[in-house]
């Protein structure tokens, strides 16, 4: 084996081992790599109980209920299968609206209510001018109906 070949073999096998090790670590920490859980995962008990977590999904249309005179708001987060009700008191981001993807950070209370202390809006990968969005809406394909 020439020294050059030896160096190449050493580097290639080193990289292969490194990739394998990284893949193993990432698989082992899979649950922690998830930024949020869906309402279905929480209903199925896949989310850690009694711990703080994030729940992600779409804000169900017509579900936003505000308490007049305060910042308190309740809304349902859905993955089009299961739904979880989120309670939050604070300023909501600009992109927050019904039908929009959101991620709420908090914990599930004993009453099944998700008490959030942070609500972030999640934008999808679609960009279009307002006219195109209106046209899609008229044709029955609202542009924000995609899941996060």
């Amino acid at each position: 084996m020439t020294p050059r070949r030896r160096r190449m073999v050493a580097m290639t096998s080193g990289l292969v081992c490194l990739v394998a090790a990284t893949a193993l670590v990432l698989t082992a920490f899979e649950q922690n790599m998830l930024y949020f859980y869906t309402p279905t995962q929480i209903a199925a008990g896949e989310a850690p109980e009694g711990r703080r977590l994030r729940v992600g999904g779409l804000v169900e249309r017509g579900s936003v209920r505000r308490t007049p005179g305060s910042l308190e708001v309740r809304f349902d987060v859905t993955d089009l299968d299961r739904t979880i009700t989120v309670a939050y008191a604070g300023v909501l981001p600009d992109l927050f609206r019904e039908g929009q993807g959101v991620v709420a950070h908090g914990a599930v209370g004993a009453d099944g209510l998700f008490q959030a202390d942070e609500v972030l809006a999640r934008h999808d990968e679609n960009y279009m001018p307002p006219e195109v969005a209106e046209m899609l809406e008229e044709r029955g394909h609202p542009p924000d109906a995609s899941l996060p």
Partner: protein
Amino acid sequence: MRLPNWLHKLASPPHFYRIAARIEPWMLGAGLAAIAVGTFGGLLLAPPDYQQGDAYRIIYFHVPAAYLAMQLYALMAIGSAIGLVWRMKLAYAIAAAAAPVGLAFTGLALATGMLWGKPMWGAYWSWGDARLTSVLVMFFLYLGYMLLHASLEERSTADRAAGILAVVGVVNLPIIKFSVEWWSSLHQGPTISRLAAPAITWDMLWPLLVMIVGAVLFSLAVMLTRARAEVLLRERGARWVRDVVAVGA
């Protein structure tokens, strides 16, 4: 495995120096022109977004910066790998030249992303998002490469040690790329580089593509300038360098 002959010829420092000096101004000019056209198209001609209004226009800077940050990392790692295996000095010089440019683009991508995140997501940063974290890791890999390189006195030792770090860090590139697909994340998925048609209308897309081309040309020109300086420094005892310096002065 041997390297092809033309690559060996190009890898001779004086030859590289001459070719780079010749194509550099064209790349720089074309790159800056494309960036000017893309900026004008993106900020003034493209329509506002149906949800984000004008705030989405940050993609005309954020996406090219993030793209270049990753491409330059790949360049730095490939240069280091060729240097490590074939002991090619020019490859090391190019890797060292690419690092600060890549670091700058990574910083730009992080900064523009945070500025957009505050009004849109509701937060500058969110720990736990795999995309954000893996790009921050790349930022520190660039920084680590540069610090390691600068801290070792002997240049060939520095090249090798920092080169190994660069090659090891390659593992991070697919993690950045696929983080938004493998795991749920706050960061949105890919818009352009997905198998279906791009999820963006043409009048919003073209300035972005022009910006990306401009950023590639601009960063290559800057990288080549740095690589030439690097080559001069490394070959400072050689006769051709004394000739170049004499002509330049």
